């Protein structure tokens, strides 16, 4: 790239908290620039006036600050050397190591032609029955955890990532607490998995607008490994709610009319651009995205989780089960849309019906519990449902479970046989004949 002849300006007309505007004739849309030494990007051009969003904030920028346009959109140098390294939102190393040498690629590139995609068809086993049994994950899927800030979503995500048998794990930390950053670093090191992992980290200590760069950086690296190297790539993005907050700050500073919950009108498209990078590529590589969307007080009608839910292929909810004092994957609200592609096909034939019957009986238990709390008498069936629910939660839904899928199915049949009659379970008779287990005392 040419270093010389970059146009320099020094007449800033307008400064807000996140943007500044100046007269410049050569800028192109989405071009990167340096404002007073800080990275910025063109977001609007009207005639001569160019508006830049300054990623690290505009504090202290004077009206005569030097503005240099760099002539290209955001880029990342990609190569095998990315592996095992930690970078900031701009793709600069933060682990004390050297700069990465490699091919320069624009981030936030074009979308894959839908007709070139393959249908996702490979199970990602995680050992967690709340996921594998009820909400099976598939390569090329995109799915977030919808979680309240106090829930252990980062721990569960790290478990999933390490057990998932991926060739490459890309961590995009968006407004990650510094402590959580150290948690990920340590858990990856302890697992001896560091060489499989690339991390782009923006912590809460970093400027919030920088967060807008992290998903694109992480996904540009993911595309390099999945498309150029045909690897199975797992991308972890935590927490996309903070990404959306950064979007709303910029849109607000640009005087745009906000839509629901003060979010920009383009929120759906902005999130889709990120999540739709998940794909099963024809040459064998894949990008799977597991993200975190933190909720406020469990409210999923807020614009961020709501738009996310319409884009992603399901969502996972965690819940504290006070009966067994463990965190479980909530079987009612969680959903993996792609599970239909693999359950009963790549997994055992009885998987779909066993899964549905168990969730239905668990729902009966929830109704019984409500009845009990309202002071009504329980029937004998209600009591059995509640006993079943307790064991089902403990041996299957709890996040500390780590067993293969067939064992999860066997355990569920044992619970059926223990608490219910065949009529109550209401599964196709051929399957009942094959798998039914009469009252067996011991469970796992």
């Amino acid at each position, binding site marked *: 790239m040419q270093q010389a002849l970059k146009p320099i300006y020094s007449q800033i007309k307008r400064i807000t908290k996140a943007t500044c505007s100046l007269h410049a*004739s050569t800028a192109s*849309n989405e071009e990167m620039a340096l404002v007073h030494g800080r990275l910025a990007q063109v977001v609007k051009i009207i005639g001569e006036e160019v508006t830049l969003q300054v990623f690290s904030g505009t504090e202290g920028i004077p009206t005569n600050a030097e503005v240099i346009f760099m002539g290209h959109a955001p880029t990342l140098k990609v190569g095998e050397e990315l592996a095992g390294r930690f970078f900031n939102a701009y793709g600069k190393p933060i682990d004390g190591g050297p700069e990465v040498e490699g091919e320069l690629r624009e981030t936030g590139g074009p979308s894959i032609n839908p007709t070139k995609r393959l249908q*996702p068809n490979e199970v990602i086993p995680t050992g967690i029955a709340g996921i594998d049994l009820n909400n099976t994950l598939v390569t090329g899927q995109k799915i977030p955890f919808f979680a309240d800030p106090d829930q252990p979503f980062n721990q569960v995500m790290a478990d999933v990532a390490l057990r998932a048998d991926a060739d490459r794990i890309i961590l995009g930390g968006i407004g990650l607490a510094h402590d959580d950053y150290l948690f990920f670093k340590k858990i990856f090191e302890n697992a001896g998995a560091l060489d499989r992992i690339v991390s782009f980290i923006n912590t809460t200590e970093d400027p919030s607008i920088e967060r807008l760069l992290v998903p694109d950086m992480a996904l540009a690296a993911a595309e390099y490994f999945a498309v150029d190297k045909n690897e199975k790539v797992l991308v972890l993005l935590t927490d996309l709610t903070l990404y959306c907050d950064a979007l709303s700050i910029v849109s607000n500073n640009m005087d745009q009319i906000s839509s629901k919950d003060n979010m920009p009108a383009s929120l759906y498209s902005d999130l889709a651009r990120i999540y739709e990078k998940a794909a099963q590529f024809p040459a064998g590589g894949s990008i799977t995205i597991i993200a975190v969307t933190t909720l406020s007080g469990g409210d999923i009608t807020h614009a961020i989780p709501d738009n996310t839910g319409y884009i992603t292929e399901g969502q996972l909810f965690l819940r504290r089960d006070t009966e067994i004092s463990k965190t479980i994957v909530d079987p009612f609200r969680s959903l993996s849309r792609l599970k239909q592609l693999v359950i009963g096909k790549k997994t055992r034939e009885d998987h779909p019906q066993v899964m549905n019957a168990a969730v239905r009986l668990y729902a009966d238990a929830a109704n019984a519990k409500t009845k009990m709390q309202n002071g009504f008498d329980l*029937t004998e069936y209600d009591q059995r449902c509640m006993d079943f629910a307790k064991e089902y939660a403990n041996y299957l839904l709890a996040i500390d479970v780590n067993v293969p899928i067939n064992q999860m199915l066997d355990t569920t049949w044992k619970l059926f046989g223990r608490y219910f009659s065949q009529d109550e379970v*209401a599964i196709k008779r051929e399957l009942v004949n094959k798998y039914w287990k009469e009252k067996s005392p011991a469970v796992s």
Partner: protein
Amino acid sequence: MTQGTIRGIIANLIIAEAKGHVAQNEICYIVAGEEQLMAEVIKIQGKNIFIQCFESTRGLRVGMPVNFTGRMLEVEVGPGMLSRIYDGLQNDLETMDSLFLQRGQYTPALDDNSRWDFRPLATVGQSVRAGDWLGEVTENGMAIKIMAPFDLEGEYQLKSLAEAGTYGIRDTVATLANGKDHQLEVNMVQRWPVKVALKAYSEKIRPYKMLETGVRTIDCLNPIVEGGTGFIPGPFGSGKTVLQHAISKQAEADIIIFAACGERANEVVEIFYEFPELEDPRTGGKLMDRTIIIANTSNMPVAAREASVYTAMTLAEYYRTMGLRVLLLADSTSRWAQALREMSNRLEELPGPDAFPMDLTAVIANFYARAGYVYLNNGETGSITFLGTVSPAGGNLKEPVTEATKKSARCFYSLSQRRADQKRYPSIDPVSSYSKYLEYPEMQEYLAEKISPTWVEQVIQAKDILLRGKELNDQISILGDDGVPIEYHDIYWKSEVIDFIILQQDAFDKIDALTKLDRLEYMLKRVLDIYRMRFEYQNFEEVGTFFKRVINLLRQMNYAEFQSEQFQAYEKELESMLNERRIA
């Protein structure tokens, strides 16, 4: 043509200055080096022309040239569109080479080198109006008509018509003339602007023919008709997409057009994979042979999303004019409304409710009005049945897109989160959903003839039982199981039988997924018979236990081939179970 230059860029909104006249909704191309990016004029204010670009605007600069074309956004229609996968602007996605979509790459909708066996249908010398059939070719076993130009004004005379034989798609197959020596050559291809309704028919009538979908809760409680409109609002996870796919696979239509508008790419891929596999019982071919997919997935440029639904509708109108029954599905119209909102926002228009543009209701109404059942000039009929999904923000049905759509669509299939949570699929709420068509006398007559004279009565009875069951269930939860008469439990559980056996359906089970009308009639009669039976119970607990067994057996019947040995065996078992408790 008019030339212009870029004066400003705000995301995908371009402000240009033009040297000459431009028209609202005119298509133009932005010249960015080697690339030509398609865009549409959406507002004109003095010398400022506001353009929405159908592509990424990264790297565009002030001063870049803009070439106006003098035409609105058009589709090209003709033989050779079936089983294709287009983007929202009718580019053939399968003929693009690269893995990623290249900006400024446009591929032709029709294959110019294709040749077709033409058979004349008209006689030289006859008078011809817009849309009249001149001849036909066969595509994937389907007769595709070659029609007089849709923009023909008044009557023309057919001067010449090609003989039966093989012709290229752009070879002249007919010439037309009007008195004032105005001569026109006609080939197999036509162009039509997508935002203008194609009305080459003689009249639109009230639809009355039921369109079978194989989905019990629709066909039974709230049927849709050929040429009807309906919409499916539902929060995410309530099964909208599965339901739409089921309908598209099973509905009795000649042509299926599926507009994936701003939705998940993997869902479109599912159609690519499934439809070519699905046998089409009517033609012996595959379902894909008579399907067209318009894929504008959520990560594709937002302006093309709005265009995609219009492109799909225009293709549907083309097939309707040749006397075919078209089923058009759009998933989801909310994404299209959001695309309008994004643009309205960038234009700094004063916002309406939830920042949507003020004319949203009118835009949606105009679109739904393009569906319908029509008589063509030659007395034949054609129809477009339109089913749109709506993705209400926060699952709230009071939001603007749902409310606007409710004013236009005649069937309302409300998906309930509660039912979805209970895994009662399809999660169409039996109480709040409706079909206006069920009230049409024409439709009632049709149903009486097609199914049975008492069918509508039975349907209304089933609806009443479901509503009654819901009310009683509320009572039971308030007063407690033993705080109400046993009769309450009895009626509640009988309504559950209807819910489990008629409403709930396993879209992933080969047999249960599709229910034909004869089977539906049989099963509805079966469950209504049970409703009329009187049973004896010692206490309320027996009611639930008894009906769970009844439901389990009826479900086994649903899973078995209709009237097969297995089916009859289950039914026999059911009879004896019912007789155990039955009071004569």
